[in-house]
Every structure is written in C-alpha cells, then in structure tokens.
C-alpha cells in the first residue's frame, strides 16, 4: 500500500483538490439557498479537521524510520509544500498582512527575513544534513562533535526556540476556533489540540508530512481567494500581486486627503534603517537554524532531491508572502475609502457592524477607536469627546495586526462561504506549524535523550511508544499553558529566531564547512553564543529582577530585543573558530567522516537501526 501511495501522489492530491473545490461551491450554493452562516463556518472547520484526521490515521506506522523521517520517501515538490505549511504559522497567515497594513514598507523586513533564509538552508546545510542521515538536528551535533554534551546543548537550544513557538500556535488555533465556531476560548484550545494530535500522534513524520501537504493547499487557496476578490472588485484584473502597484498610488493620494502622517510606501518611518537590517539578518539566520524546518529536509529520498526541495519550499512560501503586501494594500485602501466617501470623518451612527463584532471579542484589543474597544456607540462617542462630535477620522481607528486578514472578507462584504474558507486556512496554518514543532521537540526528547542517552538497547516497539507518549505530554503541556493566555509567552515567540540562530547556526555550518572545528570549539560556541543572546533578551525585556520596566534593563547600542541574535551569532562563530584552533584537531576518523559528508555519492552516513 505504501508504494501505491507515493506512486499515486499526483492523482490522490488531484482528487483532493477537486473535492475541496466542489465543497466550496456547494457551500456557496447552500448559502444562496439560505443556510445560516453558523452552519457554513462549522462545516468548514469540521470537514477540514476530519480530512486531516483521516490522513493521520491512514498514515499510522510502527516503523521507526517512517515515524521519524517519513521513510525518506517524500519527493521534492511535496516536501516543498509540506515545508511551506510547516513554515507558515498562524502568525504568518493571520498577522503578516496585518503587520504590513500597520507598518507599511518597514513591515517588508518580515517578508524578506522569512524568505531569504532558505538560500542559506539550500547552500550551507540541507544537502549535508540529508547526506548525514540523522533523525534530528541534535543527532547531527552529537555525531559530528562526539559525546552527549553537544547533543544535550542542541536539545536545550531546540527546546528554548520551539516550545514557546508551539504554545503560540495552539493559542492561535484556539483564537481562530473560538471566533469561527463561536465557542469559549478555553474549550477552543482543546479543539486545536485535538486537531494537532490526530495529525501527528499515530504516524509521526509520515502522517505530519501528508497532512501538511493537504493543509498547504487549503491555506494557500484561502489566502489567495480574498486577495483575488478585492483585486477584481477594485481593478477588474484578478492578479492582486501586480495590480496593487496602482493601489499604492491611490493610498498615497488618500493619505494626503485624510492627513495621515506616516506614508505607506515611505521607508523607515517605524524602524530605523539599522533596526530594519538587523531584523532581516536575525530572521534569515534564524530560518536556517530552526530544527522543525531543517528536519523536513531529512525526508527526501536523495541529496539531490533535498537541494531541489528547498527551492520548491521557498516557491510555495513565496506564493503567500508576495501576496501579503497586496492583501495589506487592498485592505488599507478599503478602510481608507470608507472615510473618504464619508467626507473625511465617519459619523458614529455609521460605524459598520463588523467593527462591533470584532470589538466585542473580549480580552483582545483587536479594534479600537479613540483608544477604547469598539463595544458600543456610546462608549466610542464618550472616548472621542466633544470636539469630534461629528465623527472620527482614519487616524482615530486602530486595527489589531491579528485581525486584518480574518476580518478583511467581512470588511469587503464577501459572502460567508469565503469567510469560512479564510477561517479554515488560518486554522490549517496554525495546526500544520504546531505539528512540525511538536514533532521536533518530541523527537529530540525520545530519540536523543531516551534512545541515545538513557536506553540504547530499547526495541522498536518501546521506542515508538515512548516517542508517542512524549509527544502527547508535550502537546498537552503546551495546550494547558496556551489556555492561560500567557501574554509574556506569546511575545517570546519573536525570540525563537534569535535563540535558534545564536545557538545552532555556527555549530551546524562550521560542522560541515570547517573540518578543523572541534568538540570543545562547538561546545564553547553554543554556550557563549546562545548565552549572549539569552542574556540580552532577558536583560533587555525584563532586567535581572525579571520585572518589566523596573529600570534595571540592559540596553546595548539601542538594539531591539527581536534582533538580539546580532550579538550571539558573531560570538558563536568567533568563539567556535578560535577555541577549535586552540584545541587538538579532530580524529582521523572524524576527518574522513567530514570528507564523506561532502560527497553525495555512496548513500547516507548513518545507518539507523530499524
């Protein structure tokens, strides 16, 4: 059956796309016939999760290599789609266009930073990690540098970068589920958890791979449809990525009419140029260091496919990221247009219904006018005061970054079947990233700690049982944490890139490209690089009493905490390089091993016990 499946991938996913299109059309027809919105939204959520569960159960496995690396049988194009879904988190789907809406040009640091890193992955790491044939990223460190210490340090960095990230994904899935299903956030988190576990628990990497492909298809369609819709309405041409050039001009015109100070296309109105470039650098190097991304390239059949697969990954990511600025421009134009049509200020009795719907979602400051949440007309009028009695201006309206994508279909008066589609897309984005992260954490704990350090003689059955149990425990732990809406944890997600970059990039890259790098060099590099970044992050955000704003925060050259990697990354490289040259060179066997690592011929280096 396995051979049948990979041989027929094109047909299977072709049928899947066809069925999904029929489902969307059916929803459109049922809406015309008067099916209430609530049932449409429930159908989207329910059906997509059922599909993921079906794939997850069909892909269950009792083989170790299937569980950890999908049997190394994933073709480049499909691995590219899976990596795309793995990469594009709930935050990318939900928040990227929102950041661009708010920040204008400066937000493009995220677009650049989250794509350019794949060049580093392709050139410096992916082919060599595939040739090596590890199950996890710490596995590479443990073998290349020898002993448990590098392996353990790798796990610590992996955990620091991935755990807050997975908590945020479960939180995002909870927000989306509660908004679209109309249930309490506390319960919605567990809907998200269930969606994640059905994909990953029974089949590990194999199940996650094939559900991620399915999730990519849904999320990209869900992202493109509203953008194409807005482009067609505004310009008559359904290619938003090209047509928004003229919309940028319209926005500039509106900005002058409405007296908006910060221009959308002007660079460096929110960030200084230095902040902008530091951020790009940290996001790019972080991309090339995040274990849940690197491990996707362990699953291709060959080194050659691994290289090509990075290209496909970036292509599929590019489809969403080059649409995001268009999405932001059309959304901004629509909101500005509302004010221009009303003559500059919008009277309070003309506040549209969607503002109240989003303003009334408790606990999240998603939309505010004159500084208060848009709960009812009286509250807004009171906040804006007497001198704005006639109405409020565009500048008084603050939209949260996380609501732009989810609310734009409502703002642009799209039908419910499109709104449901966007909800399903956001849910798919959050679930697929959570799955990848969860697997990265659980695999490191089960393979690197349990199998390699605690019980190297464990048989296959026991290893898989432990792997699945650890996955369950980590997932439930993250869900319980997400349920408490931990604002500090959520803001720590931005740290993941700098932490991973400072802790892992130098030992991975030098491990391949510099044969002289020694165990001592790598250990010192990880400890000092990661330590420097962590020191700056904690010190800059909290200070050493761990309380925000108490005055003891450190601040080096005004570098923002999100770019803390600019200190740790060079420290890690310099320390690893210098210490390596001061210690005896690696053994003859290790140098032979590195020479073989660089040559694709001859199959993978590690033959894992099955």
């Amino acid at each position: 059956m396995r051979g049948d499946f990979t041989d027929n991938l094109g047909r299977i996913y072709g049928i899947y796309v066809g069925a999904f299109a029929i489902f969307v059309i059916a929803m459109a027809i049922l809406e015309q016939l008067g099916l209430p919105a609530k049932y449409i939204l429930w159908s989207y959520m329910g059906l997509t999760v059922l599909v993921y569960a079906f794939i997850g159960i069909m892909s269950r496995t009792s083989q170790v290599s299937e569980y950890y690396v999908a049997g190394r049988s994933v073709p480049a194009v499909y691995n590219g789609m899976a990596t795309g879904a793995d990469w594009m988190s709930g935050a990318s789907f939900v928040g990227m266009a929102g950041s661009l809406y708010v920040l204008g040009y400066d937000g493009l640091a995220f677009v650049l930073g989250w794509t350019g890193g794949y060049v580093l992955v392709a050139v410096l790491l992916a082919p060599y990690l595939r040739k090596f044939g590890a199950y996890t990223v710490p596995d590479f460190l443990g073998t290349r540098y020898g002993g448990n210490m590098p392996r353990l340090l790798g796990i610590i960095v992996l955990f620091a970068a991935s755990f807050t990230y997975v908590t945020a994904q479960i939180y995002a899935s909870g927000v989306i589920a509660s908004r679209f299903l109309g249930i309490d956030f506390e319960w919605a988190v567990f809907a998200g958890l269930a969606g994640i576990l059905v994909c990953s628990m029974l089949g590990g990497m194999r199940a996650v791979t094939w559900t991620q492909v399915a999730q990519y298809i849904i999320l990209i369609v869900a992202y493109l449809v509203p953008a194409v819709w807005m482009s067609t309405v505004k310009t008559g041409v359904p290619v938003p990525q090209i047509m928004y050039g003229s919309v940028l001009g319209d926005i500039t015109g509106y900005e002058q009419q409405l007296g908006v100070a910060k221009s959308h296309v002007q660079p460096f109105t929110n960030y200084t140029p230095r902040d902008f470039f530091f951020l790009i650098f940290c996001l790019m190097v972080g991309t090339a260091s995040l274990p849940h991304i690197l491990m996707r390239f362990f699953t291709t059949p060959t080194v050659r496919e691994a290289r090509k697969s990075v290209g496909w990954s970036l292509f599929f990511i590019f489809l969403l990221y080059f649409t995001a600025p268009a999405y932001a421009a059309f959304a901004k134009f629509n909101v500005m247009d509302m004010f221009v049509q009303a003559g500059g200020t919008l009277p309070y009795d003309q506040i549209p219904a969607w503002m109240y719907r989003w303003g009334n979602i408790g606990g999240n400051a998603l939309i505010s006018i004159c500084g208060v949440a848009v709960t009812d007309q009286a509250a807004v009028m009171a906040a804006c005061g007497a001198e704005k009695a006639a109405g409020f201006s565009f500048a008084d309206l603050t939209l949260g970054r996380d609501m732009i994508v989810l609310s734009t279909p409502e703002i642009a008066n799209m039908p419910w079947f499109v709104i449901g589609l966007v909800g399903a897309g956001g849910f798919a984005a959050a679930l697929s990233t959570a799955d990848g992260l969860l697997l990265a954490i659980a695999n490191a704990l089960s393979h690197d700690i349990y199998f390699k350090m605690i019980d190297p003689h464990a048989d296959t059955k026991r290893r898989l049982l432990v792997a699945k149990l650890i996955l369950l425990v980590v997932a439930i732990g993250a869900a319980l944490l997400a349920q408490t809406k931990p604002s500090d944890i959520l803001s720590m997600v931005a740290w993941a890139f700098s932490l991973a970059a400072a802790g892992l990039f130098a030992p991975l890259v030098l491990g391949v490209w510099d044969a002289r790098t020694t165990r001592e060099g790598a250990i010192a590099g990880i400890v000092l690089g990661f330590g420097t970044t962590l020191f700056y992050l904690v010190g800059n955000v909290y200070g050493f009493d761990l309380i925000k704003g108490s005055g003891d925060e450190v601040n080096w050259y005004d570098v923002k905490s999100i770019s803390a990697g600019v200190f740790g990354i060079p420290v890690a490289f310099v320390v690893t390089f210098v210490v390596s040259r001061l210690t005896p060179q690696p053994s003859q066997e290790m140098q032979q091993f590195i020479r073989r690592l660089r040559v694709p011929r001859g199959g993978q280096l590690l033959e894992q016990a099955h």
Partner: protein
Amino acid sequence: MSDQIAPEAAAAHWAKTRTLMWICLVVWAVFSFLIHMFVGYLNQITFFDFPLGFYMAAQGSLIVFVVLIFWFAARQNAIDEEFGADED
C-alpha cells in the same frame, strides 16, 4: 566502497563547491541588504506602477531568492557529476 572518490578529485570537487557557495552568498547578501539600502533612490523609479524600492523588497528580492536556489541546485549537480561525486 563505492563512495570513495580519489582524494585529488574530492579536493577539486570541494574547491568548486566552495566557490559556488560564496557566489550564492554574495548574491544573497546583495538582494537581502545592499539594494534595500538604496530604497530612497530606487523609489524615484516607477516599475509597473510600483515605486521600484518598494517593489524590490516586496517581490523582486523574493523572486531572485527562488531562482537562485534552483540555479544553485542545478550548478551543484553539474559539479557533482563532473567529479563523479553524484549519487548512483
């Protein structure tokens, strides 16, 4: 063992691989950082209704990255074949 290629061939293979790596990193650095430092000048040029500086950050650089990776994969495969280092 079939994966042993002659030491001279291996050294030449690695030298070419390393050159390709540096070429890719230079292109990457130019389109990640350097051209965006001139966004002010580029914005005076209009390209498909876009200010060119904005366009390069929103689309141009991304297209370069995608093409660069596929080009790299093809070049590296050619280098592997030249020295008999490709997979059987």
